[in-house]
């Protein structure tokens, strides 16, 4: 039977001067590539966390119809935080002085120190933080300040409506405010 010689083994057929090219296999060892592939797969599987949102609880106080039924707080233990525009925070301790002398401005970075300072100075039973977001503040501000309550372990705090006087004061300070808040 006639067969074609495809093997290169028949070297003797070629002339003595013809050099034989070394035949390399076209096969590549794919094992490392498979390893890498599966490594990446496992990486993706393990790092894919279902983006789980968390929830923050908030309990609302029941509206008291009678002013007498409302919770009373000792004036010395109260600190009121007012949230203004552009992440400004204003605060005063106790009652707001008629001339606004105890009305101070702050921001979200410094407020932690102020709250801790107040906490250290007052009896734990009397400490109440009153939060009054103005109409210019954002939802983020409210959540941030509530978070600040959790971070500083302040047990008694309340979200209260802002009074027109305070609203006005916050607005004025906001307008003048960038400057005083920045320094």
């Amino acid at each position, binding site marked *: 039977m006639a067969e074609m010689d495809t093997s290169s083994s028949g070297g003797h057929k070629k002339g003595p001067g013809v050099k034989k090219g070394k035949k390399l296999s076209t096969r590549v060892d794919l094992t490392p590539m498979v390893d890498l592939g599966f490594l990446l797969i496992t990486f993706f599987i393990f790092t894919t966390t279902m*983006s789980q949102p968390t929830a923050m609880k908030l309990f609302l106080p029941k509206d008291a119809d009678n002013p007498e039924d409302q919770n009373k707080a000792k004036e010395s233990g109260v600190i009121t935080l007012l949230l203004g525009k552009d992440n400004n925070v204003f605060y005063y301790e106790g009652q707001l002085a008629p001339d606004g002398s105890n009305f101070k401005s702050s921001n979200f970075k410094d407020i932690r120190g102020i709250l801790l300072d107040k906490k250290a100075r007052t009896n734990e039973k009397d400490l109440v933080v009153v939060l009054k977001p103005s109409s210019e503040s954002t939802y983020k501000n409210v959540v941030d300040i509530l978070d600040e309550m959790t971070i500083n372990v302040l047990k008694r705090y309340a979200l209260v409506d802002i009074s027109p006087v305070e609203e006005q004061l916050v607005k004025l300070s906001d307008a003048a405010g960038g400057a005083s808040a920045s320094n």
Partner: protein
Amino acid sequence: MGRAKLPRKSTNIDMTAMCDVAFLLLSFFILTTKFKPAEAIAVTTPNSVAAKVAPDKDIVMITIDKDGKVFITMDEEQKKEAVCNALNTQMNLNMDVAAFKKAGFFGAPFGLMASFLALPEDQRKGEKLPGIPVLDSTDNQMVTWMRAITDAYLGTKINLLVKGDNAAKYPAFKAVIDAFKKTDQLKFQMITNPESVPTGTELWKKTMSGEKREE
């Protein structure tokens, strides 16, 4: 004599097929990993240190988008039906119950609810929708919604969730809270992204000392 000769086999296996499978799986995982599902209402939630995972059953979620527009999402079909019927009789709305049950969220003044439900699902996108009017203090429609919802969930637990955008202004949030208060729903949760507790703070010290956190 007649002993069968075992062919000598190479120990090398052809890896090509396995490699194919590996990369096929890899590309499948890369392509199907969605980082965040596209939502009809784009909302970026604020961060908080709260560690509790948000519930996903029996929820009534109030979404406030960046312009302060309010939307309601409910997950239970039965309750939706009850809410729809209550609103229909109370406000004379003629809403299609089947469409109401199918809709993922609601966000229109009562007058426009029927046309809102008539819109095809893919056209109900956050920016164009009116949202539920809440800012008018004499006509806070959220209160009517909450009443219908409270009645529908009577006797069962509601997980009230508020999902607000960072940039949403406070009055919209306050209007929603007021509606909660008016219907005696005094417990609710705000959806946030988890954030680590800042080191050195009191809460951090507490967690470090192994004390359990109050939720």
